[in-house]
């Protein structure tokens, strides 16, 4: 692994990087190209790499199969979940990072544990409860349930971020008589932006992609895009082009969001690495 000749090592490194890129991108590439194939071309054996692309699958899923509506539902749910998780989570993370109180470790642990709870544990009881409360098939039911995994991730990442902010800053502000809330809002929160950004991305991705809650709790009006994609999986006739078109439509918004914020990704993911 030592690098006696700098240039040779650089070439090796470049090749490795290209391999990594290919490894990550290829399935995605295949998804997009399959979405541009007709059913006959998609089922051709061996698979074809060059073909005349068609947008018919997109046309069909967007205008005939109500995928558009499900994408809007997904956006509503994911955005609201993320906003709510950040609003609730950052103050809590700040408190965990800065304040002294009894049972702090247990509280932190309890927050994180929620991330472990599988949706299958909660889905059925919540289904029964939601029907009593009239929340069945509403966005709200999904948003609330998605808090169970997005809130812990926000608290986890942001606690570590707040702890990495030098305390001198808030001590100075405190001497000037600023309230804790002011210090949190005006000094620490802006400095913790990488963490907030990353936890927003993750919370968005997790909520956007969730399937199990979605398909038990929101069968129709609030149906989200992943649940919609699964809908095409009728064992009777599997329309690969349509499935992949839907999949591409689902992935693109997340991707844009994630790429936009990707420069924060590394700075914000320093979980638990406290100086």
């Amino acid at each position, binding site marked *: 692994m030592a690098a006696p000749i700098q240039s040779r090592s650089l070439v090796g490194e470049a090749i490795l990087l290209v391999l990594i890129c290919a490894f990550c991108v290829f399935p995605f590439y295949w998804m997009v190209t399959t979405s541009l194939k007709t059913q006959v071309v998609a089922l051709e054996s061996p698979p074809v790499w060059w073909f005349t692309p068609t947008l018919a699958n997109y046309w069909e899923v967007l205008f005939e199969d109500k995928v558009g509506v499900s994408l809007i539902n997904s956006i509503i749910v994911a955005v609201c979940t993320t906003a709510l998780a950040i609003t609730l989570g950052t103050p809590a993370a700040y408190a965990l990072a800065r304040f002294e109180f009894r049972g702090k470790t247990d509280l932190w642990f309890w927050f994180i544990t929620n991330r472990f709870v599988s949706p299958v544990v909660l889905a059925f009881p919540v289904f029964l409860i939601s*029907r009593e409360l009239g929340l069945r098939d509403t966005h709200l039911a999904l948003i609330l349930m998605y808090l169970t995994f997005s809130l812990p991730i926000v608290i986890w990442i942001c606690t570590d971020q707040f702890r990495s902010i030098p305390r001198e800053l808030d001590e100075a502000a405190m001497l000037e008589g600023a309230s804790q809330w002011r210090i949190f809002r005006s000094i620490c929160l802006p400095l913790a932006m990488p963490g907030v950004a990353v936890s927003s991305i993750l919370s968005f991705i997790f909520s956007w992609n969730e399937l199990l809650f979605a398909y038990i709790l929101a069968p129709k009006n609030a149906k989200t895009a992943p649940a919609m994609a699964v809908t095409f*999986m*009728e*064992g009777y006739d*599997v329309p690969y082009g349509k499935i992949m078109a839907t999949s591409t439509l689902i992935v693109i918004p997340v991707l844009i969001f994630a790429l936009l914020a990707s420069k924060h990704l590394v700075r914000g993911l320093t979980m638990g690495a406290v100086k």
Partner: protein
Amino acid sequence: MNMKTHVSALALAAGAAFGAAGSVGAWTLEEAAKPYAGTELEVLFLDRPGYNAAIKMLPEFEAATGIKVNYTTVPYENALGEQVRDFVAGGDLDIALIDLVWMGNFAENGWVVPSETFINNAALADPALDMADFFPLVLDAFGSWNGVNYGLPFDNYSGLLFYNKCMLEAAGFDKPPATWQEVMDTYGPALTKDGKFAYALQSKRNETQSADSFARFLWPFGGSFLNAEFKSNLNSPESQAGLQFRQDLMKFMPEGIVAYDHAETVNAFAQGDVAMITEWSAFYSTVVSPETSKVADCVEIAPEPTGPAGRKPALGGFSLAVASQADEAEQAAGWLFIQWVTSKANAGKYLEMGGVPARQSAYADPALAATFKFIPALVESWQEGVPEFRPRFAEWPAITEIVQEWGTKIMLGEVSIEEGAKNIGEKMEAVLAEAGYYDGKKPLAQ
């Protein structure tokens, strides 16, 4: 086809006009629907030919009645779960889509309304309803439970033998196999060569495994799931013989057959890789359309081969029934729709658009049999059959999971046939005991 559609639409319009102008008492759909104009109906549909046909016919119904039918398309795999959850939660489905194996479940839970309620209501019942025109086997199996009818057969299937005439002829066969034994002894060896296979049996671990694979080889060999006392009959010599036969037949099937669902099986046939499949009638349009099939010109259809105990072809299909959670107007409107879409008058059009009606009158026209090659085999298959091909009681959803798991394990050779059948039997009996069949709490109906 367009032409014909126009003609029948005209005929309907003319009929309607005549009805309205005629005697006051004559029943018309428009008249019957008047109080329910504006009612919206919620129903689940599948993405299958029969439903697409119904969807194409919907505008006509909506225009005539002012009733709106909102269908949601779901995959078969989710259709039971979504309906159960909707009915348990008091949701908004007004019409139940009932696979024959869900019949007992829906009826026993009181989720569907007996059709008698509407048939006895002169304001709602079409005088031309003619229940006797449905194939009796189909009406009984798909729509009735314990002697009470709930649903009218809507999306109807029978298992058929699809065969590639060109491949058979090339191998020296001038007709399809009449018995399973022939498949095993002559057709199988002759047609399995050069990367091609004689037969493919969809066996994926879902309802396909129970319905299309497991049960298909029980009945023709004299086997069954349950004996007269509702104990497992899977270890009887006949059941074992059937399952053993299926296992032996696998040498003429493509590798990895346990991962084949309908789509893969039909595709293998349509690509010309497999000479014969036993599939539902509804796949006819897929295999004869040049767009989806390379062998469109070679496709021929016959009834399923017979076993020692006769034909007993796979039986499957869906009926539509009015949901009891719907309010009065929705129930009435729901009935009008069900009655209309399964009616004698619409059967021809439904057939043309890709559906398979269960109306005997629809198949009387010999000209149709020339266009739709599956008709003679279908009619023959529906003459006799076992309604409990898969038991239709409320416990089936639990039992089918057991059959799916162990059925695929048997095929994979992970357990012996005897061992697997014993396992299914024990677990099945536990489910039935829990349900109260053995202490007289429940009648032995399947």
